[in-house]
């Protein structure tokens, strides 16, 4: 790895830190400064005045703001995100338990969108203005207008309730595979557990497809425009003129250029997927962070929601950092910036 790229990456990491700090500051602002009584929020709707006072004491809400900020930072560094109102357990525990489920769902959705979206986008771009292209474009435009939770409900209605071919919800219908990574599909494969594998796949199908829908539409669109962009570029003309066979031109050169434009989108899409997970998990009863967030909303479990927000933000920033690094590796121009 050249020095140039290394310096670019370290610059990006340097940028990452203040953003993270800013994220923490933002959540602090929203959770401690904006509410009239942060203690009441944390204590929950059912709390008695005594309980609220106790919370105020315990969390130090009566102290001046800068002291509170200090506490907040200290807690975060220790990984203490407070206690969940309803489970009584530490939020960080609840989060880490549910994290693999959301990770699995998000990865599956991302995989689907990429594996389906990129080839479709390329074909669409190469056969511009053909019937296939128009159909795909109509499809993707619609895809961006559909509310994902509604799509999920419709699919549930259709496939699970009417046709009965997919389960209504949940992550698995048989005993879980032995835990290695926490990702059921991977674990089933690693432990040669056929029934678990099958059940996990059946359960993840609908949620993953629903979740992938909007990002798949975006990837297809961007890949297509990337292809169109590249195809008109002078270097394609030059390569053709110098007799490079079209197969080579397409697969080696076009593909790489087009993929680069897609990779730039992946960071953004990941954010969409994270956000979408909240809703999809709710619809399909998928025991991940999203469902956790929803339940916390219903129960007004404030600490839990704060925890989810922080986690989501951190993961999102981290993913963007990784995407930037990846880009620097495959697109030599990026590292110059």
């Amino acid at each position, binding site marked *: 790895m050249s020095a140039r790229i290394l310096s670019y990456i370290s610059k990006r990491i340097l940028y990452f830190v203040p953003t993270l700090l800013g994220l923490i500051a933002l959540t602090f602002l929203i959770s401690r400064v904006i509410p009239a009584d942060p203690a009441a929020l944390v204590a929950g709707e059912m709390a008695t005045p005594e309980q609220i006072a106790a919370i105020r004491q315990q969390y130090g809400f009566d102290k001046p703001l800068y002291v509170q900020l200090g506490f907040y930072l200290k807690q975060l560094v220790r990984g203490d995100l407070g206690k969940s109102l309803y489970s009584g357990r530490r939020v960080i525990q609840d989060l880490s338990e549910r994290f693999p489920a959301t990770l699995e769902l998000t990865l599956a959705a991302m995989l689907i969108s990429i594996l389906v979206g990129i080839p479709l986008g390329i074909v669409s771009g190469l056969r511009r203005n053909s019937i296939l292209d128009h159909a795909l474009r109509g499809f993707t435009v619609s895809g961006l207008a559909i509310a994902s939770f509604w799509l999920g409900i419709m699919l549930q209605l259709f496939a699970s309730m009417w046709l009965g071919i997919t389960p209504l919800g949940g992550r698995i219908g048989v005993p879980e595979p032995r835990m290695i990574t926490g990702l059921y599909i991977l674990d089933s494969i690693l432990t040669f557990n056929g029934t678990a594998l099958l059940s996990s796949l059946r359960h993840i199908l609908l949620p993953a497809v629903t979740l992938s829908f909007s990002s798949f539409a975006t990837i297809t669109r961007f890949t297509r425009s990337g292809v169109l962009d590249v195809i008109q570029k002078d270097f394609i*003309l*030059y390569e053709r003129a*110098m007799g490079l066979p079209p197969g080579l031109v397409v697969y080696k050169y076009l593909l790489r250029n087009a993929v680069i434009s897609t990779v730039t989108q992946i960071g953004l899409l990941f954010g969409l997927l994270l956000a979408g997970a909240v809703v999809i998990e709710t619809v399909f009863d998928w025991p991940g962070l999203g469902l956790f967030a929803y339940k916390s909303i219903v129960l007004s479990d404030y600490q839990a929601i704060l925890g989810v927000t922080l986690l989501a933000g951190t993961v999102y920033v981290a993913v963007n950092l990784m995407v930037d690094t990846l880009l620097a590796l495959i697109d030599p121009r990026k590292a110059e910036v």
Partner: protein
Amino acid sequence: MDLNRRETLLAVANLTVHFYTERGVVKALEGAELRVGKGEVVGLIGESGCGKTTMARSILRVLPPGGRIVGGEISFAGKDLLALDEKDLNTSVRGKRITLIPQDPFNSFNPVFSVGTQISDIMKWKGEAGGNKELDENKIREMLGKVQIPSPGDQLKKYPHQFSGGQRQRLMIAMALLPSPNLVIADEPTTALDVTVEAQILRLMSELVRGKEISVLFITHDLGVASEVCERMIVMYAGQDMEDGPAEALFSGPRHPYTVELLESLPNPRGNIRDIPGEVPSLIHPPPGCRFNPRCPAATESCSAERPRRIEVEPGHWVRCFHPVGQKT
């Protein structure tokens, strides 16, 4: 040097090319004719949009989507180029016997691959690669030396954006000459460069081509550049060829009214055609007959009735006009 007696390498006859766009059919070339002899450096000059680049792309048959060769013949070294299929074109013609030096050396390199990769890819597919990696690398290095790129070994690993414009064009020249082609099509090779670099590149090109039997079709809109390198020049206007003759004869005694106007409207005798006033006709609804007739001071009815044929007004000097200009004294 008897320009007439050179054996013909490339002969384009009656070429008509249309572009099908949303706004209508663009008749980019109509009945265009062109001849390049072996070892000859021919300039193709005209205003923007006159069809020079379309001509180049048609010869190589790399028209953009929507473009189609509607009629005419293109023969190269005795072979009918229009009859060849893509596979044959790729293996025996493009990048091998006819090479291209493109207009914009920056955009003609693929930005995400190293320069070395791109050069050797082109070499590989031309069958120039003998399979011996070292031999090929030596060949490439030698050529890079000829185009005055220092320490070629290190340079090959670099990416296009790390080179200057002049260097990139040298690389392009190297790639164009590596396969030992019969014909090099240079499409405005110095337009994207600044003046000082331009002079170097032109000199380099002349030197490299001299003495070898390499023909050059030099497309440009800069008469100064053309006069420096070209032995013969063809003047195009709105998709039609107008005049074709030895460079000196064209400059001292232009016979086509368009060429006359071209030369007169320049601030200096070796100027840049980009600065000519007046409107180029629409290529979607072009004027009938000779497309210059609406602007031509010498035009008569016959000029819009049909297109004039080529007449030889003096040895080696041809004009398409019913009323060619008389000898200037």
